[in-house]
């Protein structure tokens, strides 16, 4: 056990976490150089493209220290986005130390702070690492200053590195061995192991990543997942080399995997405790939270024939993403689909992109919603995340919506624009602090609903990319909510209904009416598009009837050309949805549901 080190790398997005992880792996020759694909750990296309880690992965790095002894260094890679902060916290709970990575050019950012606090909560040893020192714009002294002042760490202990150029990598290995304490624990005690992640393998079922705190687990043992009490027989245990390496047993202090015939990752809960069925521990490890979705949206196939294929795709997708929850939903306009819950907007986008790319689905997603609370006259409380289930407004006594504490870190010159943006988004309770000269941390209480509506993009744009953002959900607060309906020739388009703060209703409905007017083609009759709250029309636009649609000439070559156009139109028509007598193209739904205007 004394030759084990369990550590993680934490960093703001883009500060080079994955590159560093790759470099560490490369140094230990787990993979031959010529097989080495950049960023081994980010192995989804979408992760590479966005430069973020979505699914955490773990790797056991063998490294011979200065003392000539081989150490097992367990690098627990964590997701790099606030949507997945709970997963990060469980990963951190499995470590004794972290490398806190700071970009030599960007300096300390909102998530750097958030990550630091999380690591401190777990009493982890923190090793500051200044990355990208090879950049011409690197400002090592400035960053050291920030590490001293903003983070309250000793910058003399910071390691200078360039993961890209392979500078400082040995220093990092030595620091991990020297500064991160070996894990403690008792192999003889009853088993307690923390689940910090789970992956799905089509051949083996769920592969549970865990940290053994006490006890021993080996193939043949009956394990019990303490949260739901289910038991499984262990088939294989091992450590995360590349590829996985089976072991006879996992004992206290180790990080590894358990394969036990668990069908889907949803049967496990990150943060749950594994113990032995015949010799259980009395109490589960602390800190377990059941992660709940905070953003909701419905997914419909673009062509209704594709529903069975969507069902299959979601089932497959879900095998590997326990955080996604969904249930059947149906819309008069869009047919059968699913109501889905996500950890945040990024999670939603990831699910959308992966369904489209990896599962080849063409989908329409309805406007994202948060979960609202309605207190009714009969003293009951209903939670509604789907406008379809908005209660009769006459029976609502009080409405509430979730609020977040947003923490935004910006260079001083952007304070004004950020304050303005937050205020426009109904932000309250602002607070400014000056962690370092020239830099401001702005905190605001903001409705979550405002943040999921293009807030992050706006923030980036008003701060020219210098603003960084982190948030946590704090509470529910009273709010003046209404249901906004969109009507096309008097027929409600249910898929376009949204729950929205009263003050935003008109602007939102004007925007949707305008988008629809642009996207719905002229038809034989006039089309009225209206935004309404209850029976009251608050916005309107009109599409005039087409009066002429004919090309005068049609000889030899025109025939092929015309046919091709018709073929295209016919395809488009398959993607049209009928609302009353109006054909609405898929593009109109997509445009109306798009949150950003740029």
């Amino acid at each position, binding site marked *: 056990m004394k030759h084990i080190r369990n550590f993680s790398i934490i960093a703001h997005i883009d500060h080079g976490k994955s590159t560093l992880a790759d470099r560490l792996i490369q140094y230990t020759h787990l993979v031959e150089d010529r097989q080495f694909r950049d960023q081994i750990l980010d192995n989804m296309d979408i992760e590479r493209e966005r430069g973020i880690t979505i699914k955490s992965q773990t790797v056991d790095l063998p490294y011979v220290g200065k003392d000539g002894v081989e150490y097992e260094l367990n690098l627990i890679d964590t997701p790099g986005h606030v949507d997945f902060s709970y997963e990060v916290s469980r990963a951190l709970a499995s470590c004794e130390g972290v490398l806190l990575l700071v970009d030599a050019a960007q300096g300390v950012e909102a998530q750097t702070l958030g990550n630091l606090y999380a690591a401190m909560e777990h009493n982890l040893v923190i090793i500051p690492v200044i990355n990208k020192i090879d950049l011409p714009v690197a400002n090592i002294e400035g960053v050291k200053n920030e590490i001293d002042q903003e983070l309250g760490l000793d910058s003399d202990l910071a390691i200078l590195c360039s993961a890209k150029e392979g500078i400082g990598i040995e220093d990092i290995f030595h620091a991990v061995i020297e500064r991160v304490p070996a894990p403690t624990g008792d192999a003889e005690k009853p088993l307690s192991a923390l689940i910090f992640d789970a992956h799905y393998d089509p051949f083996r079922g769920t592969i549970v990543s865990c940290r053994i705190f006490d006890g021993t687990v080996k193939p043949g043992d009956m394990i019990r997942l303490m949260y739901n009490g289910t038991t499984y027989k262990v088939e294989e245990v091992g450590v995360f080399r590349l590829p996985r390496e089976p072991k006879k047993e996992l004992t206290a202090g180790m990080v590894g995997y358990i394969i036990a015939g668990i069908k889907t990752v949803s049967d496990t809960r990150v943060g749950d405790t594994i113990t032995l069925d015949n010799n259980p521990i009395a109490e589960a490890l602390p800190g377990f939270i059941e992660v709940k979705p905070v953003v909701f949206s419905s997914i419909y196939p673009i062509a209704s024939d594709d529903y069975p294929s969507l069902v299959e795709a979601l089932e497959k997708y879900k095998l590997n993403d326990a955080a996604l929850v969904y249930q059947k939903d149906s819309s008069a306009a869009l047919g059968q689909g699913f109501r889905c819950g996500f950890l945040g907007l990024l999670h939603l986008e990831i699910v959308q992109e992966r369904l489209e790319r990896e599962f080849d689905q063409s989908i329409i997603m309805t406007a994202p919603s948060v979960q609202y609370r309605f207190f009714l006259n009969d003293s009951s409380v209903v939670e509604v995340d789907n406008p379809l289930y908005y209660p009769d407004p006459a029976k609502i006594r009080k409405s509430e919506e979730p609020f977040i504490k947003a923490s935004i870190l910006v260079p001083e010159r952007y304070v004004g624009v950020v304050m303005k943006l937050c205020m426009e988004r109904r932000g309250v309770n602002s607070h400014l602090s000056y962690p370092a000269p020239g830099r401001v941390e702005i905190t605001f209480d903001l409705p979550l609903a405002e943040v999921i509506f293009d807030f992050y993009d706006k923030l980036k744009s008003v701060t020219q990319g210098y603003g960084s953002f982190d948030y946590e959900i704090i509470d529910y607060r009273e709010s003046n909510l209404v249901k906004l309906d969109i009507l096309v020739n008097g027929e409600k388009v249910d898929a376009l209904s949204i729950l929205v703060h009263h003050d935003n209703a008109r602007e939102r409905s004007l925007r949707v009416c305008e988008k629809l007017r642009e996207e719905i083609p002229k038809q*034989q009759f006039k089309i009225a598009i209206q935004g309404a709250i209850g029976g009251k029309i608050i916005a309107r636009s009109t599409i005039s009837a*087409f*009066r*002429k*649609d*004919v*090309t*005068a*000439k*049609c*000889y*030899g*070559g025109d*025939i*092929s050309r*015309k*046919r091709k156009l*018709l*073929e295209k*139109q*016919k395809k488009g*028509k398959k993607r049209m949805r009928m609302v009353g007598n109006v054909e609405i193209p898929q593009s109109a739904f997509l445009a109306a549901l798009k949150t950003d205007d740029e």
Partner: protein
Amino acid sequence: MSNQVLPGLYVHIPFCKTKCPYCDFYSITDSTGANTFLDAVITEAGLYRDIYQEFDSLYFGGGTPSFVDDKEFARLVSGLQSLFVFSPHTEITVEMNPDDVTREKLSLYKSLGINRISLGVQSFNDKELVFLQRRHTAAGAKEAIHLIQSAGFANFGIDLINSLPGQRAKNWMKTLEEASSFKPAHISCYQLTINGATPFGKMVQEGALKLPSDEKQRNFFLSTSHFLKERGFIHYEISNFAFGEASRSRHNMKYWSHVPYLGLGPGAHSFHNNVRWWNVRSIEQYLKALSIKEMPVEGRERLSSEQLELEKLFLGLRNLEGVEISDTPCESINEVALKRLIAEKLVEIHDGKIIPTTAGYLVADRLPLLISG
């Protein structure tokens, strides 16, 4: 249908004295190589002797066929006649520019067996003719018509264009009145169509030219149809009016009913056995290919049965031949949609055929989509 009806032959003559700014047919103003070109056409025709034997329509279009030197033209016609069989009552049309019409030319045409003249008048308003950059005047057009009539061409047609930018309804009706006063067998009324690659196309893109609104274009269309029908014309195709059934353009009808046709010359299209092919749109490439006796074909497509059905549907809905319901696969026609179109007076049913109404013509590009529900 294609088994009983003989194919048509089209010859594209790509020479014009001047280029009209709205026209997107392939043509050049340098006609010095006309005789080489006409030799090439005859060579090209020879390459198709095994596929096509007999025609009952021959159409010289362009460009400006009447711009070609008389002797050369005579050589072309006799060349074609020696290669193919033309059935006894073959319709032989030549497109003429009023400026080219002379007694001599007409008598030559007559002697060559040409029995139909299509005259590119476009307008009887001199200002409009200037705008269209035509080389003739209204008086010149009238003169040409008189010559054609006195040369004994009973079967002649007048081509007109409406929906010009800023065109007044009154002026258009005057043009129509003039045209009909000559009692031609055929009148074509095209709405000005802007094509991106033409000078007018560029002007529209730059905002220098603006077509009348859809509403105005619709009025031009409806009043034209009404006016000519009152004078005994049949509005047998979107842009075409015939004085009596027999005066419909036999050749053009072939395009609209999947009858085989052969197109010779640059940019010409052909259709045979469900294959459509088209020639290169460049006289240099055309001549080059034929100099080594290769077909100057740029591309071809074989139509699948669905593609054929789709073409039948949209072509049928552009003329009074209509669409035979029993011939059409049920996925192309949705009964509810059809009933709605009948109620909206866009189509009518006669003898088991769906026939577009005049209002239907106005939305003909959309009818096939509407009808399939």
